[in-house]
Structure formats: structure tokens, C-alpha cells
């Protein structure tokens, strides 16, 4: 299959454009979408292409999010942009109390094909209110599927899948990855939710990660290789549902598991993976499962403190090395 190079941003726009051509009920809206293609220009590829189906909204997060329920029930397929993951809190009730519960409360009367999507994670000195990763919260509360892609190839395939399935989905697109380049097949394809991807094969340590930390983990694996340590890196790609089988199979092989995410360590999703795996593969573990995550403080503005708080490959290497003492 022939492939082309593109960024994650391109991959999103390509998937959106293809599906919007096919399905006239898909529309997308949010702040700074129609004129600018997102605050980072990440959806620029859609500007001017679909008239009334790419819409700028006022700064009204509760209605931006809550409207998705009404739009879906009225026969549309809303793709709603949340601007910054931090401002999911601003309209949180529309997500946690409406989008994530209506199907269930109604006794399953109708499907709710809703996509929430937008940037999350750190950038550079965006400080405490513009740097959060909040995917764990949507893994904890039941009612939405959680996608955390790391590469153009995965982003495209997961978007294609999301745009044709029928449940609420939230996409966390890492700010620092929009420009990330990679090869993407020219033919259309979909990647179903719940299938992890082994991004690097190895035998000594299993790393389970997602999003930006996938890239940091791969760098760490490369460096650890020089010390003769063979690391397997698993990209979960989706957290709800998450692929337990792939992780367990790897842990059976390596006996050592490190879970790596950018979000706060305390009660982050790494704790769920840890708890599940120790419960279901205890006898295969050589020692405790370890976790890498941000320090449990808000993000600081000043660069060196941000770098201190937020994990990167050095934290991964440091934590991985503890297995070998």
C-alpha cells in the first residue's frame, strides 16, 4: 500500500474531509474553528470547504458541549471542539451529566454519535490553566470512549472509525503532536477502539503509554538499548476501552511493567492499568509495577519548573532503571 507523509493535523483533516463528503449529517463547531481552523490552526484543512457545516461558536462551553446531545437526537453527527482540555471543566456537566448518561438513562432508546475533540497536555509555558491532561476523568466516569492518539497513522484510522461508529467519543489531541509527521497509507482504513499497538518489540521491560509520552518512551527505549535493556513499548491508543490482552501477553514475557503518562501520577489512569495487571497477572510479575506521571501540582509557567513537573524520557529511563537494581 502506498503511503504519504503527513502531520497529525493533516491526518485529522483528511479523515474529517473524507467522512464529511460521505455523510452530510456530520458537522463540526467550536471556538475559533471556521475562520482560523482551531486555535493552533490544526483544522485549517477544513476552512471554507463545507459552508454551514464548519461553525464558529460564542464562548459558551456548557452549550457547546450540551448541544451535541440535541444535535445527535435531531439526526446530526456533531464533532465538537473543546478548545483546550482545561475548559472541558467549563462545560463539564453537559458531558458528565448529559452526554455520558442520556443513552443509559433512556434505556438505550437511541444512539448518540458524538465526538468531542481538541488539544490537551502541556505546551511551552502555557501554565496551570492551559496544560492539563484530563483523560483519566473520562475513563473513571462511565459513558464515553476515550481516544489518545500519538501518530498520524493512528489518528487518521481512529478518526475514521469514530466518525462511523455510534457512541460518544472524546479525542485528546496533544498540543505538541499536531505537527508530528509520519507516513499514512493512501487508501482509507479504520482502526477500531480497544486495540493497542506494539510500537516497539522488546523482552525485558514492558512500557504501556499513550500520546506524547509514547514518543518519550520510544526515545527512552532507544537509550536503554545501549545499556543492553530491551524494552517493549505498547501504545494503548484508546483508554475506554483499553486492550488488556496485549498488555498481559507482554507482561507474561517481560515480567516488568512500567506505565507512563503525562497526567498527574496520583489516581491517574496508570493506577488503573497497574491495579488491573497486578490483579490478573500477579504471578508473572518480577516485582512491583511502576508508574511515571507528572508531579501532583498544577503546571508552572516558568520553563524549568514545567520541565521538572512534566515527565519526559529521563523520567522514563530513571523509573525503568529501578527494575534492574
Amino acid at each position, binding site marked *: 500500500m502506498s503511503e504519504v507523509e503527513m502531520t497529525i493535523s493533516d491526518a485529522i483533516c483528511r479523515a474529517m474531509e473524507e467522512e464529511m463528503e460521505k455523510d*452530510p*449529517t456530520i*458537522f463540526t*463547531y467550536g471556538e475559533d474553528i471556521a475562520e482560523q481552523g482551531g486555535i493552533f490552526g490544526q483544522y485549517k484543512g477544513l476552512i471554507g470547504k463545507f459552508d*454551514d*457545516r464548519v*461553525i464558529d*461558536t*460564542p464562548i*459558551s*462551553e*456548557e*452549550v457547546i*458541549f*450540551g*448541544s*451535541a*446531545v*440535541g*444535535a*445527535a*437526537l*435531531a*439526526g*446530526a453527527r*456533531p464533532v465538537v471542539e473543546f478548545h483546550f482540555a482545561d475548559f472541558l471543566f467549563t462545560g463539564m*456537566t*453537559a458531558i458528565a*451529566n*448529559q452526554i455520558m448518561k*442520556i*443513552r*443509559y*438513562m*433512556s*434505556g*438505550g*432508546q*437511541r*444512539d448518540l454519535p458524538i465526538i468531542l475533540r481538541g488539544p490537551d497536555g502541556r505546551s511551552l509555558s502555557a501554565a496551570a490553566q492551559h496544560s492539563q491532561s484530563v483523560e483519566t476523568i473520562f475513563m473513571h466516569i*462511565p*459513558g464515553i*470512549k476515550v481516544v489518545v492518539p500519538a501518530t498520524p497513522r493512528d489518528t487518521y484510522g481512529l478518526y475514521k472509525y469514530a466518525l462511523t*461508529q*455510534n*457512541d460518544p467519543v472524546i479525542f485528546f489531541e496533544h498540543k505538541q503532536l499536531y505537527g508530528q509527521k509520519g507516513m499514512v497509507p493512501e487508501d482509507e482504513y479504520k482502526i477500531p*477502539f*480497544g486495540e493497542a499497538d506494539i510500537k516497539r518489540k522488546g523482552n525485558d521491560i514492558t512500557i504501556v503509554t499513550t500520546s506524547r509520552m509514547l514518543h518519550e518512551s520510544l526515545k527512552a527505549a532507544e537509550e536503554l538499548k545501549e545499556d543492553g535493556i530491551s524494552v517493549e513499548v505498547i501504545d494503548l491508543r484508546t483508554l*475506554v*476501552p*483499553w*486492550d*488488556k490482552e496485549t498488555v498481559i501477553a507482554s507482561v507474561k514475557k517481560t515480567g516488568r511493567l512500567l506505565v507512563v503518562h503525562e497526567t498527574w501520577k496520583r489516581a491517574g489512569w496508570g493506577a488503573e492499568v497497574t491495579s488491573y495487571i497486578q490483579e490478573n497477572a500477579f504471578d508473572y510479575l518480577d516485582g512491583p509495577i511502576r508508574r511515571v506521571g507528572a508531579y501532583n501540582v498544577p503546571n508552572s509557567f516558568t520553563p524549568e519548573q514545567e520541565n521538572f513537573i512534566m515527565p519526559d524520557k529521563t523520567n522514563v529511563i530513571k523509573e525503568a532503571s529501578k527494575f534492574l537494581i
Partner: protein
Amino acid sequence: MAKNNKNQVSKEKFLKLYEKMVLIRNFELKAEEKFLNSEIPGFIHLYIGEEAIATGIIENLKEDDFITSTHRGHGHMLAKGADPNKMMAELYGKKDGYCKGKGGSMHIMNFDLGVLGANGEVAGGLPIAAGAGLAIKKITKTDQVVVAFFGDGASNRGAFHEALNWASIYNLPILFVVEYNNYASTISSKNSTSVENISERAAGYNIEGITIDGNDVLEVYNEANKLIKKIRNGSGPILLECKTYRLKGHFVGDPEDYRDKKEVEKRWDEEPINRFENYLFDNDILDNDKKEKIWNNYENIIKEAVKFAENCDYPKPEEALEDLFADDSGYDYK
């Protein structure tokens, strides 16, 4: 009673409006009784005294028009054509209820009827209405209209503001209906709401705002008739405030320490069914005989509904793990 436009309304329509209100009243009285008797679980909020609003407005809607409702939603649902059997079964938590027992009174909904949900969250329906309106305008391009019902208390929530601004800028086909019943739970709207009439807020969104007597079913019907036509013709959103009074406690079992019994008693005089009855008697549309027949009929319908609910099975406990997703492959319920 509304003085103008009476003759817009045919005698048959008069009776239809009357019967709808009687249906709702009977449903609510029975629900109250069964709740007090511990046969209905959870908590329920009654629409008694406010029947004219749902009745008068929804009579002007087509089957495929949408409404969003509130925690006090039985009346809206019945007015939109709900089957009392399935409603009562839902209140009982039974499997033939509209939501298979998962929703109960506060979350009763039926999308086939265009009821996009009662809602346990105050003002929770407003963003939903805003979204249905947007989809109609931008995607489905039908002539559907959305009516968003909400309370005077809800009008102090941010969602009210965001939804009205949103509907205005996109010129959406939404009728916003405030049921001003003087209270938000224990709090008098006089103390919590900075304006006397919620309709005064309409100007802040550059839309029309109207206050009417919500206990006069004809006034409600006529005004809604005009406004819904206007909206269907592309006027954009309108805010209609219906003044009424919550004759019962906030929920069944409310100790009601926050208000004077006398205040409530006085308000029973303006109760919409009795008022309309007097009018119908005065105009020879109704007499005692007919009235008795109508009430007997709806009492029976509601008795049947209770029987239906009682005889219906509960859903299985493990069916609690159904209905969350269209596709739950790989999902960890435990």
C-alpha cells in the same frame, strides 16, 4: 380567561385542552398517592397547578417537533402524547417503562415522541434544545420547532444565558418557555431572581419576550399558536414566560417549612383546571354530566396505568449492564 381570540379555538379544541389537563392532573394525583404509599421509589416532582402550560403549548406542536423537559416533566411528556401505562411503569421502575426502569420520574423521556428528556439537572435541557435547533437549522433543514421548558429557578443558571444567546445568533427555531411557579425548591424566586419577569431578560438576547398568565390554558394556547407559527416561519427564538404557581411541595414529601400554608390555599383559587371548567360551563361547552364522564374516563385510564405498572416485571438486575453504549465490545463493566 383570555378575552381575545377565543373564537380562534373550536369547541372540540376546548374539550381537548380540558381533557389533556384532566389526564395530567389524574396522573399526578395517582403518582402522589402511590409515592406516599411507597409504591414508587426515588423522588417525584408534581406538575399540579401547572397543567395549562404544557397543555396549551404542546397542543400547537407537530408529532416530530421536539421538546426538552425538566425534573417536573410528567405533564410535558403526557401532553406530547405519552402512553400513561409506559409512563407509570417507568415511575415504578418497571421494564416496560419508557426507559426500562433506568430513568424513573426525573429522567423520563421518549425520543420517538420528540421528548429529548426530562432532566435531573436544573437547566440541563437548555443546551440540548440549543443543539437540536442548530441541527435543524444547519443539517436536517426541516421545519421542526423545539420547545424548551424550564423553571424560574433555572433561569439563573449560566446555561440559560448561553442557550438564549446561541439561539439568537444562529436564529434557531426554539420557543423557550419559563414556567414561573414562584419557587425553586425552598427558595422564593423573589429572593433569587433579579427581575420580576424572566421575559425582561429577552432583550439581552435581542429576542422577543412575553409574559402571560400560565394558568389560563386559552391564553397559553393562543399565544403559543401565534409564536410557534412565527418560529416555524423563521422568526428565530422567542422567550415565553408563563406565570403559574407550584401548588404542591417541591417534591412529594417536601416539609414546605419555607412557605405559608395560607399562601398556597389562596393560589388554589387560580388553579387552571377549575378556572377553565368555569369558562366551559359558562359557555355551554361543558356540563356536570360531561364533566363527570371525562373525569371518570381519565381516572380509569390512570387506574389502568397503575395496574399495567403493577403487573409489569422489573428488569433483571444484571440488565443494569445494558444500554450504555451502542457497541460495548472490549468494555470493562467491572
